[in-house]
């Protein structure tokens, strides 16, 4: 016992002070679009290598005098394999090291090169957010367990999401939000709907991971694994395959309307 206590004390506090720090240099992160113009029809490598058809290069659109092809990158379908980033010769697609990738609507996950500077608007709620201070989450897994393990990691000593008032609970009866991971294959449709039905109002749904957002690599299979969009109303989408624990915490905090911006993230220490 004394040995264990000494060991624990010696290791000190390991919880990260800066929860939403940029991902390390070695990390693949998610892809994003930069200002660099795309080569368009001359290249199209990213379109070909993308395993989930998340990238589309639209026919060249006229923009005043210059012609620039429009790249569409759907992060909701991206499994962050980073092949597009590695192969993009013009660096139009680059790595995004910001872990705050979640979004309140599906369209915002689709990035377009022609509107890079678009400021994402917060959807304003007239009523005050009931989950501002604390939120109880119920996790329903319907996939490959990577997202589940990252949710579990989000409550480990390093990320420790409980300090933000985020708890994982064991029953939908006392949960505020349903975290759904995985593409929801046919055999889970009924169970998921019943789980949602067992929650009391007000209730929210978060799609954790690319599979839950769109089905990811499983999209279009005979098991109808196309994500949760057709089954439940989704409040927040967290893309990534799997999303980083920091991204998951950021997504839940987005729902709580407490997500710090990059400039004021130090306040959260």
């Amino acid at each position, binding site marked *: 016992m004394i*040995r*264990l*206590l000494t*060991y*624990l004390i010696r*290791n000190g506090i*390991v919880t990260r002070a800066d929860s939403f720090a940029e991902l*390390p240099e*070695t*990390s*693949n992160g998610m892809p994003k679009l930069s200002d660099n113009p795309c080569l368009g029809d001359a290249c199209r490598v990213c379109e070909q290598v993308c*395993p*989930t058809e998340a990238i589309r290069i639209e026919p060249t659109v006229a923009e005043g005098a210059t012609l620039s092809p429009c790249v569409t990158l759907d992060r909701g379908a991206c*499994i*962050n*394999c*980073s*092949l597009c980033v*590695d192969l993009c010769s013009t660096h139009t697609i680059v790595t995004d090291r910001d872990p705050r990738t979640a979004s309140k609507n599906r369209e915002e996950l689709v990035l377009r090169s022609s509107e890079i500077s678009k400021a994402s608007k917060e959807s304003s709620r007239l009523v005050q957010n009931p989950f501002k201070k604390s939120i109880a989450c119920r*996790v*329903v*897994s*319907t*996939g*490959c*367990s*990577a997202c*589940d*393990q*990252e*949710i*579990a*990691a989000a409550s*480990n*000593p*390093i990320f420790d999401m409980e300090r933000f008032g985020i708890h*994982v609970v*064991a*029953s939908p009866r006392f949960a505020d939000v349903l975290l759904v991971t*995985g*593409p929801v*294959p*046919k*055999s*889970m*449709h*009924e*169970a998921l709907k019943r*789980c949602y039905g067992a929650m009391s109002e007000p209730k929210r749904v978060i799609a954790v991971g690319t*599979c839950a957002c769109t089905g*990811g*690599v*499983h999209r279009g*299979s*005979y*098991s109808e*694994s196309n994500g949760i969009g057709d089954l439940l109303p989704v409040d927040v989408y967290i893309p990534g*395959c*799997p999303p*980083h624990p920091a991204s998951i915490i950021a997504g839940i905090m987005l729902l709580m309307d407490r997500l710090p911006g990059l400039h004021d993230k130090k306040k959260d220490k």
Partner: protein
Amino acid sequence: MKVEVQNLSLQEREPQIHELVRSEGMRVGITSSIDGGQLITLLIDPTSGRAYLFDTPLEAANYPCLTRRIPACHWQERILWNMFGLVPDGHPRLKKVLLHESYDADFFPLLSERYLSRTPLQEHQGQYQFLEVKGEGVYEIPVGPIHAGIIEPGHFRFSCFGELILNLEIRLGYVHRGIEKKLTQVDWRKGRFVAEAAASDSAAAYALAYSECIESMFSIELPYRAKLLRTLALEIERIGMHLADLAGIAGDIGFIGVASSFQRIRGLTFSMAELLSGQRFLRAFICPGGVVREPTKLTLNQISSCAENLSNQCKVLLEMLLESQGVDDRLRGIGRVNLSLASDFGLVGIAGRASGLKYDVRQFRSEYETFTPAFHKLGDVLARVAVRAEEIKMSIEIIRSVLARLEIPGSSYQPLPDRLPSNSVGLSIVEAHRGELIHLAFTDEQGCISRYCIKDPSVNNWTALAMAVRNNLVADFPLCNKSFSLAYSGHDL
């Protein structure tokens, strides 16, 4: 690995395979089909790692089952019925495993249309029937498919008497996504992403198995460095998952300080994974032909210092776990599976080795130089914990040795031709952290994959859990469950 297909007639199939299993000590790796017109049986010699593939043409949709005399096949023959509509005559407990009531009764995803007409008409079985234990005072506890913790879905039906579990029936298939079919539909160069998504906690093992399966069709020898980097990924994954399982067990018995420390040092394996591959789960790293990125010398040094740190921390924590009287007391004798059951049901990985089966695929691979599997005789939760602890230490040693050998520069990627060879067979067997993972693929005349068959280690081991919990307390179920650490998604595919 290369494998020759041998023909075996239907009459000879059952007796001959039984003979090979009984007298030669072989294990049945896979029993499946390509398109419903034949049976394929993969036998593996667990003492040499050699594989033998048999092809049996079928005239009808019925065949004599292997399960009667080789119980290890019982689960795979159920899956075979689900996916192809092939009926194993004499199977003692034929029930749907993967396709639930929400699917049509006559829907067989992998059956070719050619054989559809001869498939017997399927009656909808209605609601799934669980085995009922009758008697005064016997009651049932249904659990799942959605569990209380953060885990994948599956249904457990306990029949209990007082606090004792008399029978546990496990119903899986909730996360059946149709991976095997999908792998025949996508370009083989993109297939690795689908294979990795089958069970992401074994992403490195799945990517490795997929890549080796493809490479075996080309008969290409990879650069040694590529093999080493893949081994590095596989062992990092193994340590990480073993630590997570130990954390779970320690947490369940209330040894919280050690549990959270295991979780913390699991973070180190994530860092190592991220350094090596850019992904915490080592995804998108191993590809057919080698690995996608070559780590710099600096990265390898960082991984090396992480490994040393991990080694020191593991030493202290594993000692605290295994030398604690309380832990020994709590885990000894719980969830026992004896050697004869383990070998009858063909258990693999930790579950098999903790019961005394000295089968580990790594002993047949050149990257590991000399390798002796860790094993235990007791077959209880404590034995499985001890084998895990031993394997963590061994994996750290392997990482050290691999890193030393990586000092010599070289190429880590070998380009492959664009088209797969036509009418060929690919096979790979990998020791994932849960045990023997087999990938078997067939191509058609055009060089497209016509059938991709995956045997996850959990297919063998779920039965072990059901056997282990018999006559144990209901409250000990979580411990038994975590000690086997089975995959739902890998099983359901």
